[in-house]
């Protein structure tokens, strides 16, 4: 009998005793609730889950869970997570990131993680601003967002993560809103269970530097169409939506990348020998 069958896990089993230091009102509190709810729904043992992150407010999540975690280098969480999943395919691997860490500093890793299609789930809390470093525009910031650090706005076309994910080969693409923790948890359950690289963008308001995003709760709406397995069709839909369509937008059928492991002809000592001075 597996651990999941033997034990019914509660949401609280996935939470650590570390108190989050996000700003009160931050959408990331809801995301933490959704992740722990999703894991309880799936029933995977906390010690069989690894939560990997880079740098930023959203990347603090591994410390707030009771799972294995790695708070890694800025923008490099996907490379780390892919290595872990390939070496330990038995683990459920989640990566938590933000729009700065994930699409700017880690932008190149994002493309290739989608392309490789390793079986893991990438959760990006998109608040369209660098919150931890006090409010600089990020790749997803609107071109006309006026702030002290970007007077008059950047004038730059925002990065479109969902379309980039589709074009690069992600096998599951969805968008949710942090203010709907149960809806987000349901999508995360599906994303985690779906084979291959799953990408979930969670619109998560930054109440400190983007108080205007409190209005998101009145702007989001369920996508009026069923998920498709046609990437071109999904891309057309996403390119023409208003950015607030929620739900699973694409489910692909590509087989995950998983090389055979344990077949290396050299051991760690052999590898180390090459580096000895």
């Amino acid at each position, binding site marked *: 009998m597996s651990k999941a069958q033997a034990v*019914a896990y509660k949401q609280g089993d996935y939470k650590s005793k570390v108190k989050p230091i996000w700003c*009160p*009102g931050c959408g990331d509190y809801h995301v933490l609730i959704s992740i722990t709810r999703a894991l309880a729904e799936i029933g995977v043992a906390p010690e069989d889950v690894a939560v990997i992150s880079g740098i930023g407010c959203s990347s603090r999540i591994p410390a707030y869970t009771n799972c294995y975690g790695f708070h890694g280098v800025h923008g490099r969480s996907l490379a780390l997570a892919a290595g872990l999943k390939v070496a330990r395919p038995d683990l459920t691997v989640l990566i938590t990131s933000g729009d700065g860490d994930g699409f700017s500093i880690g932008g190149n890793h994002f493309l290739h993680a989608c392309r490789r299609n390793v079986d893991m789930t990438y959760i990006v809390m998109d608040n369209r601003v660098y919150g931890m470093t006090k409010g600089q525009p990020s790749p997803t910031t609107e071109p006309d967002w006026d702030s002290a650090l970007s007077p008059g706005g950047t004038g730059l076309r925002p990065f479109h993560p969902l379309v980039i994910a589709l074009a690069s080969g992600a096998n599951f693409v969805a968008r949710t809103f942090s203010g709907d923790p149960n809806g987000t948890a349901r999508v995360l359950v599906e994303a985690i269970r779906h084979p291959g690289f799953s990408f979930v963008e969670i619109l998560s308001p930054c109440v400190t530097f983007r108080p205007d995003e409190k209005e998101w709760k009145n702007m989001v709406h369920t996508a009026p169409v069923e998920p498709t397995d046609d990437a071109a069709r999904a891309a057309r839909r996403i390119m023409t939506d208003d950015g607030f369509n929620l739900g699973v937008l694409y489910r692909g059928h590509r087989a995950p990348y998983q090389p055979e492991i344990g077949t290396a002809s050299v051991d760690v000592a052999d590898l180390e020998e090459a580096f000895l001075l």
Partner: protein
Amino acid sequence: MTNLTNIGDLLAHAYQIEIEAVERYQMLADQMEVHNNSELEKLFRKLAYHEGQHAEEIRTQMTDANVPELKPGEFRWAGPDSPEAVDLGDIHYMMTPWHALQLALKAEQQAFAFFDEFRRSASDPDIKRLADEFAEEEEEHVAMVLKELEKYPEPDDDWDDDPDPPVSPE
């Protein structure tokens, strides 16, 4: 209306409402502790304590009933979340007891409405009796919060003015 057809289902949902409320108030208390708002921290811990007591009362009733062990997605709420859920987006680091009690009042009123509607639509006398009990309990909570609110007048409009804000306009 939520389709709860037996005592076990009703107890499972009632217990979950209280457990989630405890966790939520503890989370809010932790937020206030981290942000040095000790008055609010104490208030949220007090609210968590009261919810915990109610949860314990329900738990003792669960021992003799056939209560299903439900996963998070198996609860059948009337809305997207459990009736006592509050919008964590409404939390502010400078909020006052008046704001916190307004949140609590809304949560308790939603919980009362949940059980009130349920007791009105229930046909089984045992389920109706239990739903009556829960509705009355939530009504007491509403009254308790309203009484507490009498101590705190609504703050002025500038309650969130911060002389050292996290973001400077210049």
